[in-house]
């Protein structure tokens, strides 16, 4: 076979992706700027903070050439807040806590504002919207802006926290407490993921879908095989029904009577 790995990203590949996240480091020695294939790395000058990719930060950390500043969310207090939202809050009984907003998206506090997507342009002239791991979701932010924005778990939270606890636990504040909180978060969220299996039927119908907003990359990776398998089998079971429904709708359309509202209410479901 040309390629032994199953389709869909495997856990080690997710970790590979997470290593592209930018983190804040305090260098302990000078290093001139480097032109990497992944972009420019700014020059490291000792007491000044710098943003570099996680893989590079870990490489420098292992050689004791830099200290990693923990991401704004990887402290006991924000994790405690998120855990509270995740386990106690009424609105999030069956949903994950809201993810950090994308650029141009209003934060959870003022959700009435209209989002405005701000694209970049590629060299080929196409529009491009940045997404994790290429958003600064794991940098150490100044305290002032952090108090305005409620804490949120970034897309790659499992991988980044694991790697930091593994390689740079001396840079974290109270790593044991963080470890406990992360474990609690994992368990709460995994329970939600499992209890949501009931609504997967919605994803099996054409044009339907199941919202998993706020889910983490590793959580998707864990559930991917299961969810895809369940939905695939449900789709096969319902294939003849769907075909019949489609023919019926085509007939209605031919008669000019279809108004497109007949299955609206069952399509939108959340975990």
């Amino acid at each position, binding site marked *: *076979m*040309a*390629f032994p790995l199953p*389709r*869909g*990203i495997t856990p080690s590949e997710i970790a*590979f*992706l997470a290593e*592209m996240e930018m983190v804040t480091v305090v260098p302990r*020695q*000078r*290093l*001139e700027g*480097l032109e*990497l*294939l*992944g*972009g*420019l790395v700014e020059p490291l000058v000792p007491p000044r903070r710098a943003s570099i990719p996680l*893989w590079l930060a870990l*490489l420098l950390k292992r*050689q004791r*050439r830099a200290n990693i500043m923990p991401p704004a969310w990887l402290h006991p207090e924000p994790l405690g807040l998120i855990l509270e939202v995740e386990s106690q809050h009424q609105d999030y009984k069956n949903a994950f806590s809201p*993810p950090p*907003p*994308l650029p141009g*998206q209003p934060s959870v506090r003022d959700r009435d504002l*209209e*989002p405005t*997507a701000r*694209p*970049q342009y*590629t*060299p*080929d002239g196409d*529009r*491009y*919207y940045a*997404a994790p*791991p290429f958003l600064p979701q794991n940098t150490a932010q100044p305290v002032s802006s952090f108090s305005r924005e409620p804490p949120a778990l970034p897309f790659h939270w499992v991988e980044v926290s694991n790697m930091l606890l593994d390689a740079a636990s001396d840079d974290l504040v109270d790593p044991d407490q963080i470890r406990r909180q992360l474990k609690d978060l994992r368990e709460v969220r995994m329970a939600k993921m499992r209890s949501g299996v009931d609504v997967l039927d919605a*994803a099996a119908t*054409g*044009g*339907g*879908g*199941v*919202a*998993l*907003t*706020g889910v983490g*990359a590793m959580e*998707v*990776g864990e559930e*991917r095989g299961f969810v*895809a398998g369940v*939905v695939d089998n449900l789709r096969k079971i319902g294939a003849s029904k769907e075909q019949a429904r*489609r023919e019926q709708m085509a007939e209605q359309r031919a008669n000019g009577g279809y108004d*497109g509202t007949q299955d609206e209410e069952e*399509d*939108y479901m959340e975990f």
Partner: protein
Amino acid sequence: MDIDDILASVDRGAGASPESAALDHQLLTRFWVAERAVSEVLPWPVPLMERMMERVRRQIETIEDLAASSADTDSSITTTTTHNPNLNLRLSILQTDLARTQYLLRSLLRQRLSKLSKHSMHYLVQLASRNKNPLLASSSSQPTQTTTSSSQASTQNLHPQDSVPDISAVSDPTPLSQPEAAFLHAHQSLLAGHYAGSFLGAFPRQLRRLDDNAGGTSMIQAPETREVVFVRCLGVEVPVAVGTADADGMEDDDEEEIGVTMRMGDVWVVRWEGCESELQLCSPVPPFHA
């Protein structure tokens, strides 16, 4: 500055600036994630891949130059090594970065090859039919209609190899790259030859075709476009389309139904066929995650 230098700097072009390097890296990463997650082969991004390959080539040269210079200083004058103590660190960082990019490219290509060899007949027929007759292009994804010659199959003296479409005249191999198209044809020819030698040769003539569609069932396996994928919505709103390509091959874009609508920042589990058109139209593009 010499005129040659100016020309050289122009030659390096817009693709050579560090900002575009970062952007291309992000595009490549996203393309890799999408290719790994989706059942079909995605259109080959020619300009992006050309820029990436060029950059990888230049980076290898840079690393070789650096390594050579460090070797020189080591052997000739040992005192100069203290002049640049970071050289080894820089080298190892550059090499790690290079290896990461090469991993992305390699994994991407191997995933594509694996899809191609799994559904080789499907893609060959798609390529051949589109280039032979533009009118067939819209239905080229429907393998049931493309085997025009199968009705006369029984009258000819057929080898399984003859059912492999000839794509030597194909000028535009979209969604594949040119080498991929060549690989596809060579692979399928070898496979057909092998089948003929091992068992198909013993069959009656009318049963020897690899693209047989007798009895209304096509033997060509197409990738499953109704599989689910995980998508994140990056535009303000992205509607999920239903049934853009029906099983009976009717495509009517004007009357396509709209299912649920994804809002910005949402992550959804939806069918690939529902958001495929959005990916290809690029407005707005949902990326594919994990």
